[in-house]
């Protein structure tokens, strides 16, 4: 249920974004489930309401606006573009508690090729100004730095791709890094397989293992078995590089301090230089827009556990005195998502959403 006060607050924010020049866009409430499932994976099933349409098949009640808005832009948007939207989103809750199942979101999204650091700063500063009366705490991060560090590792492309795929799943990322770094022993089953592969062609082992059932073809099994044998020959990622990644994963502080620390890391891992330069450019753009970056929190791992599409700047605003509340606003950069949904085309994009219900609640609490 959305209250009149929440809707009034949503209207106010929506009008503000329009006044900034954003074009209002609509999105369906019922979305085809397939796109969302392919994008977010099976987990979204636990977090969204799934329903069935006799003709269209599985549908979902809109869990967020990003996907429909990006699809709309990629289908027929002019460049550059600024959009705003307002409406309910629906989140299934698997645990008892106060978390809302439906609530309003008001969003602002920028699709622009020029000067991404400035677009990041534009969105953040706009949100910071709008939310200033609530004295919220801001958290920021940058997944681009972590991704650049993974890309810069001295190891096989296959290992880098495996790590990159799990940037958003901290636990599996950790397990992979420990394995590639030689910190966890090779599983007995893997040792046995490698020994067998050393003595026999993979095709013979497959033929001996049982009848070929299922869609996964013997050629695919062979390809991965051969890849595993090759991977066993790849030396472990050096302790020095693992330490750099650990340092990055734990990096937190204010933005100015974080930048200095990243410049130090750059000496040992020059591959992150472009990403750190983008971070520095963003800080300058933020400062130009009046944000005190020396007082702004930065955490390199921020945004790793949210829905997986942010791949650069990430931010959220939350009420420090109310840890029970979800963030009042959050957002970030999602360049890769536009490529996934753009069928070959892509455009740098950044944006965020505010929850007017929480704004209203905190405003009333203060009054």
């Amino acid at each position, binding site marked *: 249920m959305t209250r009149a006060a929440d809707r009034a607050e949503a209207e106010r924010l929506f009008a503000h974004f329009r006044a900034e020049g954003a074009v209002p866009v609509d999105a369906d409430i019922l979305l085809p489930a397939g796109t969302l499932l392919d994008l977010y*994976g099976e*987990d979204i099933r636990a977090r969204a309401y799934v329903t069935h349409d006799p003709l269209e098949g599985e549908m979902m009640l809109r869990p967020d606006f990003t996907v429909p808005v990006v699809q709309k832009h990629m289908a027929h948007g002019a460049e550059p573009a600024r959009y705003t939207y307002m409406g309910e989103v629906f989140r299934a809750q698997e645990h*008892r508690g106060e978390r809302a199942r439906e609530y309003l979101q008001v969003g602002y999204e920028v699709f622009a090729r020029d000067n991404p650091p400035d677009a990041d700063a534009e969105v953040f500063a706009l949100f910071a100004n709008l939310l200033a009366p609530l004295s919220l705490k801001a958290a920021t991060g940058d997944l681009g730095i972590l991704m650049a560090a993974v890309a810069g590792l001295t190891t096989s492309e296959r290992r880098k791709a495996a790590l990159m795929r799990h940037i958003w799943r901290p*636990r*599996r990322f950790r397990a992979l890094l420990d394995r590639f770094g030689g910190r966890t022993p090779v599983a007995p089953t893997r040792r046995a397989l490698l020994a067998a592969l050393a003595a026999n062609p993979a095709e013979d082992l*497959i033929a001996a293992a049982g*009848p070929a*059932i299922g869609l996964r073809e013997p050629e*695919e099994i062979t390809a991965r078995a051969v890849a595993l044998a090759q991977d066993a020959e790849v030396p472990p990622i050096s302790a020095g590089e693992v330490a750099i990644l650990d340092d990055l994963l734990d990096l937190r502080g204010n933005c100015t301090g974080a930048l200095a620390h990243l410049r130090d890391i750059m000496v040992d891992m020059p591959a992150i230089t472009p990403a750190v330069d983008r971070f520095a450019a963003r800080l300058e753009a933020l400062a130009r827009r009046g944000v005190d970056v020396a007082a702004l929190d930065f955490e390199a791992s921020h945004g790793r556990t949210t829905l997986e599409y942010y791949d650069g700047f990430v931010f959220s605003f939350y009420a420090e005195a109310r840890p029970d509340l979800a963030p009042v606003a959050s957002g970030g950069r999602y360049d890769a998502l536009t490529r996934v949904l753009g069928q070959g085309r892509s455009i740098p994009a950044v944006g965020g959403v505010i929850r007017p219900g929480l704004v209203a609640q905190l405003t009333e609490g203060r009054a």
Partner: protein
Amino acid sequence: MSLKIGVPSKGRLMEKTFEWFGARGVEMRRNGNEREYSGVVDGAEGVSLVLLSAGEIPRELSAGRIHLGVTGSDLVREKLADWEDQVADLAPLGFGFADLIIAVPAVWIDVDTLDDLDAAAAQFRASHGHRLRIATKYHRLVRDFLRENGVADYQLVDSQGATEGTVKNLTAEAIADITSTGETLRANHLKILTDGLIHRSEATLFAGRAADWENGARGALARLLPRLGVEMPERI
């Protein structure tokens, strides 16, 4: 108002449950004819028997329509969100053992662990254009387990029976199902992942927190549990 206890209405689970209670001096039996689902309890005052499908007992506990229920620990975890908030686990009964596991074709020589499954799923999606399908009826348990372990690029497809046959029938690439001896899996050319044990299920006596525990039900429970050798839960 009596204390209602829900018990599986047929098969080995019912027999074993009757045996378990009988061995503790509480005689349960069906009455009426063979096809009628009603039963009686002898030797325990204020306790009445409700015969139900094992699969419905979690829901009945959750709704508060029965006070106690005997069913598989897997079913309670699968069917009830935040199950510990809804029911109290009173005692494992020592029968009805079954493991919920993940199994893949034995011919997959490159897949023995969740780590392998995840990598194979990525490869499969890249070459087939859709996520690797895992057939199961235990959607919540499997999804929570795979999320916890960071497995991606899979999808769950519903299978309410003969799940071991789905791979051969090309409706799934892997399965998550219960097994006790593993024989059906082997017969269908499947193998269990070494770290693919999701839950070790056992028939269990549960108490529903939503039931009406006033009007004598709590007293009946306090008299019943010592006879069963089961401790009174701290809170219901």
